[in-house]
């Protein structure tokens, strides 16, 4: 009897190891969505209006505070229509940049997608069970996300990258809307 239990335990262990190794070897590193596909999904066209926002002054400080480092680029492109803005943000998980596509509507996140994942760990963040947590999330008074995002064991750094990118997208969206309304009221 103990022999059978031992055999079953060894078999289960080997099977679990094989499954893990196969999952890693299969390489969850990958390009899941192109920019055109992301924009088509978000706006119904792959060429919506676009503009750039410059990271200067107050916005640069806000972005640095959210991301924990200064923005890698001097400006960021975004796409928009009457109600939505869409942002493509690269943020490093542990060593490689993860590309997130984030759509914001009425100051809330409508969708977050992992477009390109280059890290060797933490790929679980691309699944809907994780990305759906960002739906309808918004900024609180202190400029952080108003809901806590549940982490994934073994993918903490990727989860952090997603959370920081979502926070940045909301701040950028707020900034562009404020700039637009200021421009309209000053006319």
């Amino acid at each position: 009897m103990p022999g059978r239990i031992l055999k079953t335990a060894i078999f289960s262990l080997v099977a679990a190891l094989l499954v893990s190794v196969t999952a890693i070897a299969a390489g969850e590193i990958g390009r899941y969505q192109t920019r055109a596909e992301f924009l088509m999904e978000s706006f119904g066209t792959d060429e919506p209006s676009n503009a750039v926002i410059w990271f200067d002054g107050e916005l640069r400080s806000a972005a640095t505070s959210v991301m924990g480092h200064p923005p890698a680029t001097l400006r960021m492109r975004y796409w928009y229509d009457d109600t939505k803005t869409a942002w493509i943000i690269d943020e490093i998980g542990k060593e490689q940049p993860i590309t997130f596509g984030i759509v914001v509507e009425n100051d809330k996140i409508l969708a977050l997608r992992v477009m390109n994942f280059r890290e060797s760990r933490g790929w679980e963040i691309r699944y809907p069970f994780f990305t759906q947590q960002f739906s309808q999330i918004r900024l609180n008074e202190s400029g952080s996300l108003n809901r806590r995002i549940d982490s994934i064991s073994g993918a903490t750094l990727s989860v952090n990258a997603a959370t920081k990118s979502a926070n940045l997208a909301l701040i950028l969206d707020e900034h562009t809307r404020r700039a637009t309304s200021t421009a309209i009221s000053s006319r």
Partner: protein
Amino acid sequence: MQPAPPSRRARHWARRTHRVLGVSSLLFLVFISVSGIVLNHAEELGLSRSSAGTWILDIYDVPLPPAESAYQAGDVLFAISSGTLYANGEELSRVAGQLVGAVASTGSIVVASADQLFVTMGDGALLERFSPGRSSPMTKLGLDGERVIVATQDDYFEFDPENMSLSTSSAVDADAVTWSLPVSLNARQAEDIGMAALGLAINWERVLLDVHSGRILPSVGRYIADVTALCLLYMCVSGFVLWTRRR
């Protein structure tokens, strides 16, 4: 005078060594505790993103990582080393794959790697980056007059740096395009980029971890840490024994 009984002598010796070891390992214990707490919060403190500086690299004495590919555009030398793109030795961005070209185009510079396009100012400051997401990697970058042309294994595309868009270009005469060619680095340039790459690889988290474990001193550091750990073990045991005897 009668000599002290052996058990009393042993107790006296244990108390004395316990005290001496306790005082002498005080600094070490404080250091281990503080460095352990800091390491525990390395991510929040940004230690893994903070280069340790060139002075500490001499202690590590490791060979400089080579520049894997380099291209010149205008006054800026772009090179990739250890997965990071550098402009004149300054870190620009993490990048997957090799550089395929760099061209100066109407006030900006376009740089291409196998799966990303970068647009920089004339001085190399990064304006924007773009991952086209094509299945076929980019292989060449060139100029056809004012047009920036990107080649993949199957096709040619025109890149618009203003709109960061890539469109299929049927009217490309590959022979008329001036393709960007790799350059060889001189010793000074190779050293600058190697030092920058090594500085990124050896960050403060790594240094603190190595100091914490004693590996910062390659030959003896581990053994110093071992001896100290044994001393602490001895203090645990002797402290416990002295405490039970007193009770």
